[in-house]
């Protein structure tokens, strides 16, 4: 029900992200989505990719500080208000969302988020029959 996301420690200096992208390219790993937020000194570069475990090992072997994290990936129909309706299910259940980002894949929307209340989140997904991306789907997603 969750997928692995890479979280790379990205120091705020030129070339940091380029290095990660080059390593993934050399490893023939495709990026599905990525996001970075900036703070003064460093950022966390978060990546959803075709083969997270192999990507993780590739980056680690190259000395990159990287973490493998479980995040939820909900598939939404391409309709106005779908994100609002879906997030409401979680917030009504008092589930704290640490961060969230979304992107379009084909004609579907994908909502990625992380929460510490993952058990509760699982329940919500099952009870509401939400469509989600599983780890095994990643390699065939694109």
């Amino acid at each position: 029900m969750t997928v692995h996301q890479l979280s790379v420690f990205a120091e705020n200096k030129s070339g940091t992200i380029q290095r990660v992208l080059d390593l993934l390219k050399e490893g023939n790993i495709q990026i599905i989505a990525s996001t970075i937020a900036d703070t003064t000194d460093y950022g966390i570069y978060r990546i959803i990719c075709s083969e997270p475990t192999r990507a993780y090992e590739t980056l680690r072997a190259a000395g990159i500080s990287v973490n493998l994290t479980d995040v939820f990936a909900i598939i939404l129909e391409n309709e106005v208000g779908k994100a609002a309706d879906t997030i409401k299910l979680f917030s009504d259940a008092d589930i704290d969302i640490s961060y969230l980002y979304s992107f379009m894949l084909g004609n579907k929307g994908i909502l990625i988020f992380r929460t510490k209340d993952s058990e509760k989140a699982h329940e919500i997904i099952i009870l509401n029959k939400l469509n989600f991306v599983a780890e095994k789907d990643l390699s065939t997603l694109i």
Partner: protein
Amino acid sequence: MSRPEIEKLQLERLQKIVKHCMNSPFYKKRFDEINLKPEDIKCLDDLRKIPFTTKQDLRDTYPFGIASVPLEKCTRLHSSSGTTGNPTVILHTEKDLQEWAKAVARCLHMVGLRPSDVFQNSSGYGMFTGGLGFQYGAEHLGMLTVPAAAGNTKRQIKFITDFGTTALHAIPSYAARLHEVMEEMGIDPRKDTKLKTLIIGAEPHSEEQRRRIEDMLGVKAYNSFGMSEMCGPGVAFECTEQNGLHIWEDYYIVEIVNPDTLEPVAEGEVGELVLTTLNREAMPLLRYRTRDLTRVLPGECPCGRHHKRLDRMKGRSDDMIILKGVNIFPIQIETILLQFKELSTDYLITLETKESNDDMTIDVELNDMFTDDYGRLQSLAKEITRQIKDEILVTPHVRLVSKGSLPKSEGKAVRVKDLRKPF
């Protein structure tokens, strides 16, 4: 005093103090070990028979092991700021305090201060000797003395204007800060204050920095040298020639040695300053290695004084950093960093000048990305900052950097980058 007079007095005092040191369990043992008797000191050159005393000796005998008098004869204790391991403790008797005040008063008198002057001391008080040391010295000279203590810049300036302060003691970077705030407050130090003399010390500064401060505040600035092991301020001081610091040779015997061979350097060459106290009662120190690098300036001083002149301190024979007047050893920071398993063993301390203030940044390498959470990374940096601040009393800016981006610890890695600019 002429040279022969100084040297005659030095020998008398040296013989007396060596005898007195035999009351110290530490020195008694030192002398017995090499079968040296106080009577063996027959001329000033015999001083070299006596083993050196180091800061480590002070730590090893912490707190009272070097004292040459029973504790009940002591009336004051000072302790060094932020050093590694045990702090170093210096004890004083009532007589020591009087002698110290006299030495400081002599320094202040030398630069033209008189009882009619108003002396303001912006040094930290408490254990830091720059506070009480100047206080007692200035009072001994008979000046109205304002123990303003460190910080609170606006109040400091109000005292200067309201009390008609004519002489100020401040570390150089703080003097620059005072000027900055005066400008903000619309105060012209030349017109609106009576400041004419500034005593600067405790922080390394160049001749250019001194001239700039003099120009900013419209004062003459005199360099002061002291260290808590030698009482504090009052060891050596510039005269009105502003060329070298006269060291009071009736109080100290000066040696300059090569820090590696410990042999005396040739006249006028740079080496480590070694001092022997000549009139301390509670805790005399024989051949104390100060770790400060300097040289004795050759020739006579036009002021006519025969006490030797030390050149501006050239640095340290160890890796001590002086930041905001506080002594810091990188090992203190390293010890703390090593306790964090989230970090690698590499680090880099960068010292910079920001808004005329000394600023310390410590880059630390994240060993592993142990989290996906900004909050956890931030609280790690915060915790490191807090622990370092508790140790060195200065708040650093701790910056997490990725693994492998800092110089490696093999060989001689650069741990400290000093980019501080003249202000």
